[in-house]
């Protein structure tokens, strides 16, 4: 095969790996509850594809080929684990399915169940997002570790432990019952949003770690929505992330300088992404089940409105934050509310809101100090503002944000 032919075969493998990874892992592990073995089997299949596809050509249905090959590998893996007696029913099941598979190329999409497994209450909440990124999207531990600021070895070990727990604790691959669905879905949404990891680009508190994963998070939200189109909050989350993503190009100047939301050139915002976000938000709102992500998306929708009207409707933002605080009184929400109040009702009122937050809670929370510095500066309280700027600068890990704040501090 020619070199370019080989290249296109490699690209084909990459593409099918990327698009099918989660579907295959979800399906392979849904009966065995053994995510780690499913992943091992799939990597074996991918390695085999790398050696045989360039010779024999890419099969008609690459996904089915991978599934069949991975399933054989999984049978071998389980056999080698020498727990023959215990695993006999599983093996039988896999063999039965293998026979059926020969005639059929269709297999059910179990990714939704896998998402619920990853965000199961028995799994350490800190591992929900890393598990999703690995099992549903196929990201490797090293890349996930970068995003979460953990050493690659440690992340690898934690992922292995979490997968062992899934198996040993007997966590079922199923959609939760109606009774527990809201809470369980919430955990899935939280984990996806954590991958997105920003939410603070508007207040000089950009989280460098999350940025790389923004696209992966949007992908996860689309997977979720594909299977639960009626869930208003899932749609709200996708809308929220699309609004933020739309501003990506405007968040840095040509020289890499940090540009706060209020100073961004709205012509640099992506209109197609904003329009898609608006459609999702409208669709979510039509279901009359308001929630945290829809409210956060609504706030971003008001910001996006500046591209049309040239001004930001701060009163509307204050109103949405007021509702948001009632259902989700987090530090982030309260800080955002304070910033909005400072714009809508004046810096004095904004400072009042900030003063209502316990100082112990914010000792290492950067956005609070950035907003406080900004508000104090507007009030002309120079030395207090400089102190707050220092706290915000000292808590920033983003070089561009640090330079921006140092400049503002004067």
């Amino acid at each position: 095969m020619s070199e370019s032919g080989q290249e296109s075969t490699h690209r084909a493998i990459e593409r099918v790996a990327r698009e099918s990874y989660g579907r295959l892992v979800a399906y392979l592990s849904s009966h065995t509850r053994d995510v780690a073995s499913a992943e091992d089997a799939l990597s074996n299949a991918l390695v085999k594809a790398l050696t045989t596809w360039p010779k024999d050509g890419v099969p008609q249905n690459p996904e089915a080929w991978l599934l069949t090959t991975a399933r054989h590998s999984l049978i071998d893996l389980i056999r080698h684990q020498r727990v023959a007696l215990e695993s006999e029913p599983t093996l039988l099941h896999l063999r039965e399915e293998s026979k059926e598979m020969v005639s059929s190329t269709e297999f059910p999409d179990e990714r939704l169940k896998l998402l619920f497994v990853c965000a199961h209450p028995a799994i350490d909440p800190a591992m929900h997002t890393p598990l999703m990124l690995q099992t549903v999207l196929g990201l490797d531990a090293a890349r996930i570790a970068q995003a979460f600021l953990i050493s690659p070895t440690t992340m690898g070990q934690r992922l292995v432990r979490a997968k062992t727990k899934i198996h040993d604790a007997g966590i079922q691959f199923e959609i939760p019952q109606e009774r527990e669905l809201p809470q369980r879905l919430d955990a899935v949404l939280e984990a996806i949003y954590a991958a997105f990891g920003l939410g603070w680009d508007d207040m000089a508190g950009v989280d460098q770690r999350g940025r790389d994963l923004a696209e992966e998070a949007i992908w996860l939200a689309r997977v979720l929505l594909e299977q639960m189109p009626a869930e208003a909050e899932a749609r709200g989350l996708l809308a929220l992330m699309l609004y933020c993503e739309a501003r990506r190009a405007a968040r840095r100047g040509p020289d890499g300088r940090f540009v706060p939301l209020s100073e961004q050139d709205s012509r640099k915002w992506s209109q197609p992404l904003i329009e898609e976000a608006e459609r999702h938000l409208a669709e979510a709102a039509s279901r009359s089940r308001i929630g945290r992500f829809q409210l956060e998306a609504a706030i971003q929708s008001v910001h996006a409105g500046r591209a049309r009207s040239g001004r930001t409707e701060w009163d509307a933002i204050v109103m949405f934050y007021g509702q948001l605080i009632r259902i989700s009184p987090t530090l982030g929400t309260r800080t955002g509310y304070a910033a909005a109040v400072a714009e809508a009702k004046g810096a004095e009122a904004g400072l009042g809101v900030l003063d209502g937050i316990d100082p112990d809670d914010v000792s290492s929370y950067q956005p609070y100090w950035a907003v406080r510095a900004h508000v104090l500066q507007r009030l002309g309280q120079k030395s207090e503002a400089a102190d707050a700027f220092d706290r915000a600068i000292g808590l920033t890990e983003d070089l561009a944000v640090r330079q921006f704040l140092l400049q503002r501090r004067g």
Partner: protein
Amino acid sequence: MQFALLIFEDPAAFAARNNEDEKDPYLGAWRAYHKALVEAGVYVGGNPLQAPETGTTVRIKEGKRRVQDGPFAETKEQLGGFTILELPSLDAALDWAARCPAASAGAVEVRPVSAVYLRRVTG
């Protein structure tokens, strides 16, 4: 538990210390970082070190003193100082390391302080 942040800086960062300008951004970033550590109640101690060429390395080989000008290791980035922090976990230490101005300019190594060995040494 305690963690040491070992600050590694390149020659440019060491040279910048001679800048008398009180508005120097690297100095400003360090002042702010120090204040944030103290205000968060995690700062135990630490010190900046003078430039690597001021170092002198001593060894006793076969009973004889061997003295060498310069630092222990010849690398582009050199130890420029250290900070000791009291923190609940390595994760928290890595967070603070990421906020350190030297993390953008050089590198910050996080090492747990060995409390066990300290007890064996000090008795």
